[in-house]
């Protein structure tokens, strides 16, 4: 089956006073209807990948590599061609929904907007579709919600409205950037259900960016762990949570509440000048001499997963 999204050696560098290497030769692919969770701590580059795929990086970002979406290399397209795809073929759901929604426009208008932008219907048609979508999401009657303003509803509700606005045109790829950040547990489950409902049909692929491992565990098919701008482990959901390979992955799982809240000592390396060799080496308990000297590649392990570690060969 052809993958919907194929990322090949993607690198993103921000050129300011110093060059910041946010993403370094990341490669992975996403099949149709699949859910891939990209996890990692703040600053590891996962949001940058999301923005790179959507083409929303600021001007001073230098992008290299290939981002192939449904057979087209996105980096070779013009801005106009890319904006024709945004909201229609690929969509993104931002964190902080209350700020991502325009505070002076009604919810109904914002959900219906992609239909009008891409010329997929008249204004009445667009509002009908928005109402139908809200009904499908269980927000009924939709007339209660469409005339609201973002300031009149809660963060959790706004996040669901945001998802509705992003998915109204049935995009093949949805990127959810920290969709459950800052929500209380009840709302987190609502959003999760929404995302599961989204990918249930097998037509929409979801790239889930999160630092919340619990959410990743509940809804992802595969897990990709990022550290310091690189992918360090890529495995199936069950295999990953049963037996994480990379020392960083192990550390992450141990820092969860149910495993004792054991933090990983130290902090991630500076993206301006990453260390030679393995980037996790300074904080790794199992580090050996080779880890400091040579940079490991992402290679396949016996059970099909990919790991970037000299100790996991």
């Amino acid at each position, binding site marked *: 089956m052809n993958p919907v999204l194929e990322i090949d050696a993607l690198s993103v560098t921000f050129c300011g006073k110093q060059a910041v290497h946010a993403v370094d030769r990341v490669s992975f692919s996403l099949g149709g209807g699949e859910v891939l969770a990209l996890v990692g701590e703040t600053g590891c580059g996962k949001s940058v990948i999301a923005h790179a795929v959507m083409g929303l990086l600021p001007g001073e970002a230098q992008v290299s590599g290939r981002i192939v979406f449904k057979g087209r290399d996105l980096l070779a397209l013009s801005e106009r061609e890319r904006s024709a795809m945004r909201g229609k073929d690929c969509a993104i759901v931002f964190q902080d929904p209350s700020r991502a929604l325009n505070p002076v426009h009604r919810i109904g208008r914002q959900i219906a907007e992609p239909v009008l932008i891409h010329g997929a219907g008249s204004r009445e048609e667009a509002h009908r579709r928005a109402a139908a979508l809200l009904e499908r999401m269980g927000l009924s009657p939709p007339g209660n919600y469409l005339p609201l*303003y973002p300031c009149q509803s809660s963060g959790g*509700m706004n996040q669901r409205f945001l998802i509705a606005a992003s998915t109204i045109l049935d995009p093949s790829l949805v990127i959810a950037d920290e969709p459950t950040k800052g929500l209380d547990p009840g709302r987190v489950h609502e959003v999760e259900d929404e995302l599961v409902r989204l990918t249930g049909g097998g037509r929409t692929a979801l790239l889930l960016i999160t630092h919340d491992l619990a959410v990743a565990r509940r809804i992802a098919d595969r897990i990709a762990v990022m550290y310091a701008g690189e992918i360090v482990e890529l495995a199936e959901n069950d295999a990953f949570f049963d037996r994480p390979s990379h020392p960083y992955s192990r550390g992450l799982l141990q820092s969860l509440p149910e495993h004792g809240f054991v933090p990983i000592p130290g902090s991630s390396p500076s993206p301006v000048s990453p260390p030679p060799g393995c980037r996790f080496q300074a904080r790794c308990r199992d580090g050996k001499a080779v880890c400091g000297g040579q940079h490991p590649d992402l290679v396949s392990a016996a059970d099909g997963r990919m790991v970037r570690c000299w100790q996991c060969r």
Partner: protein
Amino acid sequence: MLSCRSWIPGPPGGEEIHRAGRKVLRYVLSVCAIIAINFALPRLMPGDPVMNLIGEDAMVTPAQLAEIRAKIGLDRPVTVQFVSCLGDLLCGDLGYSFHLHGPVAGILWSRMSWTLLFAGTAIVLGALIGIIAGALSGWKPETRRSRAVTCAAMAVSCTPPYFLAMLFLAFFAFRLGLFPAKGYYDVLTAGSVVHHLLLPVAVLTLFAASRNLLVMRGSVVQEKNSHYALYARAKGLFGRQILFRHLLRNASLPVITLVALDFGFIFSGALFIEIVFSLNGMGTLIYDAILARDYPLLQGAFLVIALLVVTANIIADLLYGALDPRVREGGV
């Protein structure tokens, strides 16, 4: 079962009424202050209060003066005087101008409609032009055109309006002879009025637009970096579509505040321009009154202008509330 509160906005709650009440109180207090100032001025200023009340240039015989002095009743207690003054105001009596031999209210009324036409057109046009030009300039602030426009706007807003008017008059009317140099009309037709008013309206519009442009530009530059602007782009909006569909309304809000606050300033500018263009509106009336020290007229004019400004502020407040739901909800 989904847990959700009732999302339907209900009747205004206690807090909303409280906030609206405070605004109304503020306006009422302002009007009271204005009336109080108007009342106190002639009585507090140096010189004979009676002369202050009837104007320096009033040509009255000593007998008439004594009569007036008795009628005004300056020896009555202050509160009684104030109440009587208030009563006069409510009846629309703004005093009598001895200089012009007529009731102040009537004189002001006849001249004011022209000034309002002139100033009102310029304020509305200035707001529209300032918003659009400021939005375009703020969207691409680094381009040479945007910077040139910004510099021009700064230069214009630093120029006294009457000087700008003189330049326009000297160039377009005297030198090029394209426009008439004085008056509101030769014949009372729409065409003639437009022909006469074109230059003055252009000057005042330019002045108001330059101020609005600067504020709008700064506002757009700020709003450009907001999350919702980025999300609009993520939905597929391209280039200036983002500006016009999303940013324009949000970024115009400070401009509305400015137009309200500025109303008094722009209206005053209109008076100066009227003087330069010899238009028969409030400007020349006030200029005349200053030369003749016709205090009743000046006070009446002050009262009327101040009340106009309060009205403009109220309208702007309502408009702002209509555009920005956060204000209605009290969340800003």
